[in-house]
């Protein structure tokens, strides 16, 4: 069984694939990087409420340059708008939302995800002199569901980011529910990664060849 040619998703493609799976009414936090793009692909008539760590509930579309409000930014410190029905809270209340289990979903970027749901997304080595944690640890343990958006393999030597065990320092243990990559959608289950979806033209065997952790086909 040989592969037909396949074309990995670009970053927008991953974001769009994630957007397809977010139902109306969910309350969602999007991390920096690929996840930030997800909201652009949720159709306007599907009400999904987006949260930012700095106390914004109901992020709207980006403002035009002449409509930038200097008092209104997202967690990446990028100007945003507020959607009708949105609200502002202070930082502790905002993280009470995130840590108290009130987010239906958080989507984060990552360096690696392990088959037990561990996520590593904040440091490439325990010896890095300077750490950049931000709110990722809070979001990872607090949200009802954690999905990860990332490229399947590293850019340099094509190593698998989908691991038996993470090699980088952990952000949180056993919290990832699903991974969206440029090649596939993987569910984290008690039996390890299960392939929910693959891009057109990709075979299970090729996907497994590019993946360090063992993969399972969807039952049935």
């Amino acid at each position, binding site marked *: 069984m040989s592969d037909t040619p396949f074309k990995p998703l670009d970053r927008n493609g991953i974001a769009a694939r994630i957007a397809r799976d977010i139902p109306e009414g969910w309350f969602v936090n999007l991390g920096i990087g690929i996840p930030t793009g997800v909201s652009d692909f949720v159709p306007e008539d599907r009400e999904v409420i987006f949260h930012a760590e700095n106390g914004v509930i109901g992020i709207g579309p980006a403002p035009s340059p002449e409509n930038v409000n200097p008092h209104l930014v997202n967690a990446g410190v990028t100007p945003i708008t507020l959607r009708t029905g949105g609200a502002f809270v202070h930082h502790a209340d905002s*993280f009470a939302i995130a840590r108290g289990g009130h987010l239906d979903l958080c989507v984060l970027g990552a360096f690696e995800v392990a088959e037990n749901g561990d996520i590593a997304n904040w440091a490439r080595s325990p010896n890095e002199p300077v750490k950049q944690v931000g709110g990722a640890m809070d979001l990872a343990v607090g949200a009802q569901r954690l999905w990860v958006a990332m490229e399947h393999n590293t850019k340099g030597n094509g190593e698998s980011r989908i691991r038996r065990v993470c090699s980088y320092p952990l952000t949180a243990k056993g919290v990832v529910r699903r991974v969206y990559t440029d090649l596939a959608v993987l569910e984290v289950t008690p039996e390890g990664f299960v392939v929910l979806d693959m891009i057109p033209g990709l075979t299970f065997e090729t996907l497994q060849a590019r993946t360090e952790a063992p993969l399972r086909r969807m039952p049935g």
Partner: protein
Amino acid sequence: MIHKFVSTTEEAMAGIPDGATILLAGFGAGTPEHLLKGLIAQGAKDLTLVVNAGGRDDGPIAELLATERIRKIVCSFVRPASVAARLFTAGKLELEIVPQGTLAERIRAGGAGIQAFYTPTAADTLLAEGRETRVINGRNCLLEYPILGDVALIDAWQADRWGNLTHKDSARNFNPIMAMAAKLTIVQTAHVVELGDLPPANIHTPGVFVQRVLHVPAQ
């Protein structure tokens, strides 16, 4: 009459001692930049700075750090290309990295009289190394202590003479909780209003948490 307004930046910053812990609000928006410049001019040294972001290479936080009067930063992240990172690498700055939600909660705990709390955030990470943890309801949790400031530097949109404040849009961020957690809370406000102008149900930071207010009209 209670009257918390001061007329000059010097008066606002008066008496901040060497060795003080300074809570600095702001997250993209809502940083009290005028007061931060006032702190640079005021001259206190050996300070601990509690702030969400250890900063970039420009702006008043970088300027303050460049004075080398900050002994330690408590924050949720520091960019590798920043004054803070360079000072840290040179051994001239202590760094305590705290997850952003834990940082907010520790500050709120300081203001609320909570003496310590358990959170699952960071419990299974490098940040928990050598620290006290405890399994509660099957979840590994880390013990965290409150953060209290000697001084908080706060940005407001409106203020009245009792020190009641509102904050604009997402400029609210750390401002209300840092105001709670400091012995001396100093505010810069874009607008001054009469007592009674702010609707009682919609005051974002009650005056009980505020000691001094300086009017700094938005530019």
